[in-house]
């Protein structure tokens, strides 16, 4: 009944004033660490009147540091031939599939080499290159362009002094 409370012990004797708590993984709710408050409720205070934050102690629960190093047990299992190498097969299968695909592709193209006919495609491409552009004045883009007709450039008259 106390809000946000995820663990409540049984009513225990208040003789020694201590209680062991073993931290469980599910308390973390898939997080690395969580901030919690520890509180003690005496029997004369009802759940409704009890405030965990009044005298509570704030602390963290955490997964702790993990060292990714094979343990002695893991090494012993490896030596016995009991391994968990599924990831290894997955990692190998992807490049294998790609290599097989390219080998198949090579042979397919090799076998069907004589039956291929791309002449229509190549002809079309070559015809595009040989296209005749036509007259400049008839081009749509430059049709309305006012271009002066060629006239003879003015000749320079030499003065007598220049001679």
């Amino acid at each position, binding site marked *: 009944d*106390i*809000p*946000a*409370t*995820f*663990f*409540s*012990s*049984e*009513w*225990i*004797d*208040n*003789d*020694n*004033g*201590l*209680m*062991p*708590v*073993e*931290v*469980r*993984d599910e*308390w*973390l709710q898939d997080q*690395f*660490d*969580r*901030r*919690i*408050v*520890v*509180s*003690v*409720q*005496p*029997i*004369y205070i009802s759940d409704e009147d009890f405030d*965990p*934050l009044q*005298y*509570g*102690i*704030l*602390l*963290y*629960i*955490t*997964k*702790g*540091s993990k060292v990714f190093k094979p343990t*002695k*047990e893991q*090494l*012993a299992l490896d*030596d016995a031939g009991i391994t968990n190498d599924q990831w290894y097969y997955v990692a190998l299968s992807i490049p294998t599939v790609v290599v097989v695909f390219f080998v198949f592709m090579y042979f397919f193209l090799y076998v069907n080499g004589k039956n291929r006919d791309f002449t229509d495609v190549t002809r079309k491409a070559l015809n595009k290159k040989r296209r005749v552009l036509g007259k400049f004045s008839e081009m749509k883009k430059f049709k309305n362009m006012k271009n002066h007709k060629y006239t003879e450039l003015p000749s320079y008259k030499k003065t007598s002094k220049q001679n």
Partner: protein
Amino acid sequence: ARQVVRPKEKMTTSEEVKPWLRTVYGSQKELVTPTVIAGVTFSEKPEETPNPLKPWVSLEHDGRPKTIKPEINKGRTKKGRPDYSTYFKTVSSHTYSYEELKAHNMGPNEVFVEEEYIDEDDTYVSLNPIVRCTPNLYFNKGLAKDIRSEPFCTPYENSRWKVDKTYFVTWYTRFFTDENSGKVADKVRVHLSYVKENPVEKGNYKR
């Protein structure tokens, strides 16, 4: 190439915790079953000859148990068992009149109030090997470290509890005294609740 690792055989001990019999409150027979929690044996059978240098269990700041071995240095015992002073004793006042005492330095109308400390019933308390929480073991908490940690002695504020490990929460039992009846609560329960973390504090811990 890697050498074959042969896991060592686990050493087992023949020393098992067995139930034992004791007599409480004069004639009442009782079977006591020892329990081991986080390496600490509770309700252990006391030794035939009391050993003053018998190790006792203290607690780290986060609540992990640690064994303390008392030493004798220059005739003095160091790291000895904790002395709880009068924290767990009950005060009883006796009022004596002049007629009762007839003290020569007492006036005829004077009364003398004597305080007597009565030891608690240690029938079950004596089975606990871990240091008990008393107000002199409180710590200071809060940002300015100016708030007493009552009623807790462990864990300290901002301790980090790791998954699968056992920690002891300790509190001063007499803190929970009912104001109406004046009696110490005989039953308590411990709650663990989630707290919304301050965004400033979040992720500051160096992993």
